[in-house]
């Protein structure tokens, strides 16, 4: 514990040097960190200067209505690896999936971290919060809502990791049986960063944490509370298959010639045009590939309500109703009504004709 406290007081630079990391190692580390934060290489010296003095923040990770996919994702984060992240970048003081302690001891660790770092710690939330019935999801007998409100009260900021925490995600999908809400639905008095995705890209999670660690502030956010550096451009705009879209070359099925040639997946329901995320550049699994490269359209998982956006295999702008059937019915109704309107017009004219008084030369002047 004493060792833990000592390391907590140390700056990152001191801590790394104590562990025998050379200056070149530190520069490499900063290069990787800057790249992860999607900062331009010219920012490396600034990152280095900041990291040298950075102190590790305490992080409390709360998992609510979630599938642990986000945690699975972060454990696959590379550059820096998870061990680096936990021991060097942050002080992960509570994460009930990853920590050794359980039960009362775990909760005590959370309370201790909150107490020691009042006003300075970060809360990471994954999973949505059920507002329907507190009993839908509890930890150590504490409802998710209560635990979050309690924990967030003394936090510096909240990072909502994953689309469930950021936007409600799958639990909130129609008909939303648990009354699932996102973090930002509940937390209004603290800065909330949404790191959406189902799951988010691992390095995007760590990139946001690294940004807070490096600069002590939150990154610039978009209208949905997401860091601009990662969510500033759509998948479609950064997609390497975009030239095929522009040429009108589309895969029609997942096994046709077009699919084999790597043509655009728009017709197969790709949500790239509406999805803002860094997949096209950062990619997944240490940069190996990403959904579109693997031949499947983007699901738009970083967007609100992506579960309910009309089907993963339906193109975005296409009406979902049966147009031909509806048009058929309406056309039939239109013909009937139109015929009636036409008949009415004919009768108007016939009535006028019946009322016709022959115009003679004695009728040319107005009746006075």
């Amino acid at each position, binding site marked *: 514990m004493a060792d833990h406290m000592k390391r907590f007081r140390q700056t990152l630079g001191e801590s790394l040097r104590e562990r025998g990391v050379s200056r070149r190692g530190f520069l490499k580390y900063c290069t990787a960190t800057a790249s992860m934060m999607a900062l331009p290489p010219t920012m490396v010296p600034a990152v280095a200067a900041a990291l040298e003095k950075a102190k590790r923040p305490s992080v409390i990770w709360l998992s609510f209505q979630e599938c642990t996919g986000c945690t699975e994702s972060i454990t696959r984060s590379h550059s820096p690896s998870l061990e680096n992240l936990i021991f060097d970048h942050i002080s992960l003081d509570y994460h009930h999936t990853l920590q050794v302690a359980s039960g009362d001891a775990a909760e005590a660790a959370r309370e201790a971290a909150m107490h020691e770092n009042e006003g300075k710690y970060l809360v990471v939330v994954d999973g949505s919060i059920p507002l329907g019935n507190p009993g839908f999801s509890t930890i150590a007998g504490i409802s998710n809502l209560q635990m979050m409100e309690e924990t967030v009260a003394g936090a510096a900021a909240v990072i909502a990791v994953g689309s469930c925490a950021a936007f409600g995600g799958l639990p909130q999908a129609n008909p939303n049986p648990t009354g699932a809400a996102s973090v930002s639905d509940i937390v209004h008095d603290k800065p909330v960063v949404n790191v959406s995705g189902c799951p988010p890209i691992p390095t995007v999670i760590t990139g946001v944490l690294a940004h807070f660690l490096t600069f002590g502030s939150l990154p610039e956010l978009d209208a949905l509370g997401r860091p601009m550096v990662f969510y500033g451009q759509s998948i479609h705009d950064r997609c390497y298959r975009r030239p095929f879209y522009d040429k009108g070359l589309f895969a029609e099925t997942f096994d046709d010639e077009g699919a084999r040639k790597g043509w655009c997946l728009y017709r197969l329901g790709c949500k790239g045009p509406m999805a803002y995320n860094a997949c096209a550049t950062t990619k997944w699994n240490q940069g190996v590939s990403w959904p579109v490269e693997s031949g499947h359209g983007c699901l738009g998982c970083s967007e609100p309500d992506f579960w309910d956006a009309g089907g993963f295999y339906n193109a975005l702008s296409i009406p979902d109703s049966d147009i031909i059937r509806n048009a058929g019915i309406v056309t039939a109704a239109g013909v009937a009504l139109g015929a009636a309107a036409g008949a009415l*017009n004919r009768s108007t004219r016939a*009535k*006028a004709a019946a009322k*016709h008084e022959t115009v*003679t030369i004695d*009728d*040319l002047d107005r009746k006075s």
Partner: protein
Amino acid sequence: MSGATLERGLNAFREQMNAPIASFFSSCVNCGMCAEACLFYTETEDPKYTPINKLEPFRRVWEQEYTLWGKLKSMIGLTEPVTDELLAEWEELIYDGCTLCGRCSMVCPVGNDISYMIRRAREGFVAAGYAPEGIKGASRRAVTIGSPMGVKLPALQAQIKHVEADTGLTIPIDVEGADYMALLSSMEIMNFPEYLEALGRIFKQAGVSWTISSEAFEATNSGIQIGSSDIARVLVSRVVSAAEKLKVKYVISPECGHAYTAIRWEGPNLIGRPYDFKVVHILELLDELRASGRIKTEGTEEDRLTFHDPCQIVRKGGVLEQPRNLLEMVTSDYVDMTDHREMNWCCGGGGGVSANERAEELRIKVFKRKKSQLDELNVDTLVTACANCRLIIEEGLEEYRMEMPVVGLTEVIAEHLVEDKE
């Protein structure tokens, strides 16, 4: 007590509605192109003379009574009704400011036949009592006396006597069983008797069996100009019964624009049945005689000539090739105006405007269009085939101090006719 009322006018508008008009009103996007085709706009630059605008009262009746949407709008008071004031204001536009020349109908991008609508809209104006005094007077004279200019049979007989005396020809009157019955316009009788003489000479040479009816020699139809089918029917019926009484095979429409429209195109519809005879325009007949070799000409006009296409005969009558075939026979220096044939510009006096004294100033103003067309060509003589155009052009030329003879095509042919010596 009889008399025109707003209600009768509105009723007439309603009666006139049909699919073409409804499609025209539905299609107009107020692009303003028709203004550019109308000499009343081009010469005055007053946007109120934009052809489609002249139909506003009629358009309102269409919108408010012939569209579901318009009916709904009327119910909630979003439309403006057709009132006496509106018709009074528009009377000038639809009578003084339109010669029914139909040029706008040729340029409308969506295909609106605007002059067709104006002809029908006038039915409403007449019934509501908003027609110019001049055309009313012409109509009264036409119905009561038989001619809009008040020409009676004795006047015709006097002219016939003159012609017969001058030429030694016999002008056949009321010959039953003749092939052709010729009609004349009052203007031809009074101002241009050369036409009658030309007919006599050409028909004699070609051996055409023809006659003039003493009961119905007048070709013009003020009912068409004022826009009253009822009055037009009375006038056209006279021609029809005379022709049927004389058992002629053909009726010849003279060199008069609206007479051709009245007898050839509107007549059968006014009486509600096809004729027992056919109607030919004099130029059609002459061209037929030319083609079949029954008339021959010698020599050509020395002058540089151009032809003014009368709107009702050419653009709206379909007599397109005949005038040029005939002119080719007798001219050596013929030139067409920039806009000619079906795109020719009106003289400014058609559609009843010439009978409408109060429109004179405007008519003279818009004649500038014809003037500038003529200025471009530098011609000596203008040939036309409509007595009304001829008179209007003569007046216009005089007004603008231009020296240029205006002659009828039939006369020109007669002048060059090769006649057998007896």
